């Protein structure tokens, strides 16, 4: 299979199931609130941190330029900073919010040192190089100032950014997940079986069939 993003579940929109027996009232309430999140809303991060964060999340979970309403990943991370944490932290990292502030400052400092510009102003290839170095633990000590880049990446960036992205219905459409399922649940459990309220995968040459089936998941 391809290692690029594809339109594997053409026409599938998990939100079409919103008013079906797969979604109960409390689920509608929770997802509605998520969809109503202001993509530019941030009250934890400063404007400078926000610019770096937005550029960073675009490299971790890139979204197609054609997407009219991108998943507001940065706003979801900002929201997380204002809620309960994960229930633990690795001893080498400071608490959640402080780790993020120092990590974003370190990325900005790396960009400044390497390119004389701010992280969100440099090219994506340059951004990727900085991210890759951080992930491999090769951050420059002057920039990271005692924050371990590898741990920052694996214990802060990954859980906060990746899990935010895959908490959003638009991401569920992309991977063909059935989404909320209460109270209806599922019936067809075996190999290659699909309930009519699940996403249909486009087999080569059968894209239109999948599109037709996906149009019916909300009925």
């Amino acid at each position, binding site marked *: 299979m391809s290692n690029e993003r594809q339109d594997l579940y053409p026409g599938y929109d998990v939100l079409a199931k919103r008013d079906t027996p797969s979604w109960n009232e409390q689920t509608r309430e929770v997802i509605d609130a998520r969809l109503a999140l202001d993509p530019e809303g941030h009250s934890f991060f400063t404007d400078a941190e926000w610019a770096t964060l937005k550029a960073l999340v675009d490299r971790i979970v890139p979204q197609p330029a054609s997407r009219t309403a991108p998943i507001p990943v940065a706003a979801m991370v900002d929201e997380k900073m204002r809620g*309960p944490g994960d229930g633990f932290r690795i001893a080498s990292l400071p608490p959640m919010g402080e780790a993020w502030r120092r990590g974003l400052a370190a990325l900005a400092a790396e960009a400044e040192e390497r390119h004389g510009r701010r992280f969100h102003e440099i090219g994506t290839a340059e951004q990727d190089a900085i991210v890759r170095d951080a992930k491999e633990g090769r951050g420059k000590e002057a920039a990271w100032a005692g924050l371990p880049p590898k741990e920052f990446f694996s214990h802060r960036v990954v859980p906060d950014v990746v899990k935010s992205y895959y908490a959003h219905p638009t991401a569920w459409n*992309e991977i063909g997940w059935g989404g909320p399922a209460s109270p209806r649940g599922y019936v067809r459990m075996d190999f290659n079986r699909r309930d009519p309220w699940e996403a249909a995968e486009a087999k080569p040459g059968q894209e239109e069939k999948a599109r037709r089936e996906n149009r019916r998941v909300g009925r």
Partner: protein
Amino acid sequence: MSDAETTIRATGGRAPDVFRLGGWVPMREYREADEVDFAIVGTGGGGGTLACRLAEAGFSVVAFDAGAYWRPLEDFASDEHHQSKLYWTDERISDGENPIQLGSNNSGKSVGGSTVHFAMVSLRFRPEWFKSRTLLGYGADWPLDWREMWGYYGEVENALKIAGPVSYPWGPKRPRYPYRAHEMNAAARVLARGCDAQGYRWTETPLATVSAPRGESPPCVYRGFCTLGCSTNAKQSALVTWLPRALAAGAEIRDLAMVGRIETNEAGRATGVQYHRDGRWRFQKARNVVVAGYAIETPRLLLMSATTRFPDGLGNSSGLVGKYLTVQGNQAVWGQCEDEIRSYKGPPSLAVTEHFNYHDEGKDFHGGYCWMSQGPLPMLWGGTLAGDRGLWGEALVAEMQRYNHSVGLKVVSEYMPQERNTVTLADETDRYGLPIARVTYSWCDNDKRMNRHALDQMRMSLAGAGATELWEQENDTCHLNGTARMGSDPATSVVDSDCRSWDIPNLWVCDGSVFPTVGGVNPSLTIQAIACRTADRIAALAKRGDLERRSVLTGS
């Protein structure tokens, strides 16, 4: 939407009816000045079960939980992100050579504890594990006899109407499971194919979610959100099984009640608990105190309750409170199938093989393990691909698109008890001003050899089932046990076989903390079986007048 996290629900002579929207059931209440027979800290698999059985035996019981009292039908969304509200999200610090991830699968902050979001896997110990030092040459012997435990396993399986196979492939004979096994999903069929290719037996996993109606519980509808809380009440958690029984028998449950200290008097006996509820600290008098907060909060509370008489914490003359923390390996092998798997449907672990729990030949390590089929939801799966496989950017989003074809096997393996793996108190404090827990974990060479063996076996199995592009998730662990171990010698254990402190005769521990070894299966069934046994032992001790006075030190 739900006020359960901010508003005390169990008060005013009533507690939530977990089976009805907005419903209530009557609840007996005790005054704080009443010296109740038992104050129980924690309402999960240990404390909830014990609260039920002690109340049914006629004791006065008040059970405390730091978490909310949910009504699953109205409070649980079908959403992975939102339902993290079931976890213990207060800060803890994790270190050691192999720091363990906390706060999600191995934690719970709810009335009902982590059984509200557990994966429902309900397996018995291999009998030899209760005497692993003597019979198998590793770990420590339990002061319990497997034949007695076999009876209590049966009691719990019946109380939870476990859905499982007619005949179980491993171990001594046991009765058939009360309810029929669940239908296997494709991920479970991959496990079966792999085992068939290797010549190992497999079976439908015995699960604590009903496969037919049971009282107010409808049969499981295969939503697949089990580890995020069951919104239909098919899951037989402590919240919907033991606790309604406890209330009916006259127990009181206090939700949003964080116990911060066990008080002791000059005679060295527990007198009750200090707890924070409704904005202030309060004190409940009790003749006996039971700690059932699981293997981090239990030692934390015992250590925080130190006095001049007990400067190292309560029940700690052995020095072992908070030591021998023992988790289980949770490594996985993942791969791709041409078939659509869609492992998100149904309970996550519908098939299991316990082959390497019961077959020791050829092992270059002590201990055993089982492996099970898996059904990660998108947030968990994204975190796994990014965190464990190291994917990010376009490679991550592309791999995530193969979600419906991804399949995996995950182990639950028996790590060795090591004194150096600990729960201690950090300098940092929480919102109550209490010191937070520091959790220190390192694998020993035996753990590493077992990890390697299990990964190799699961890799062969998945390949045998026809999966390709296999990769290993090396770092995950699950379950928490061992920080107040039971034993037959006060010098080398914290509690006796009755879960009673050697040092303080009216202090008890009843949760996974008492495990001297962990075996290669999920611990919840054993925790509940021990709670049932402890209740029977307490009733027997009370009958002969030994409850408040230890007349004979058993085993010494």
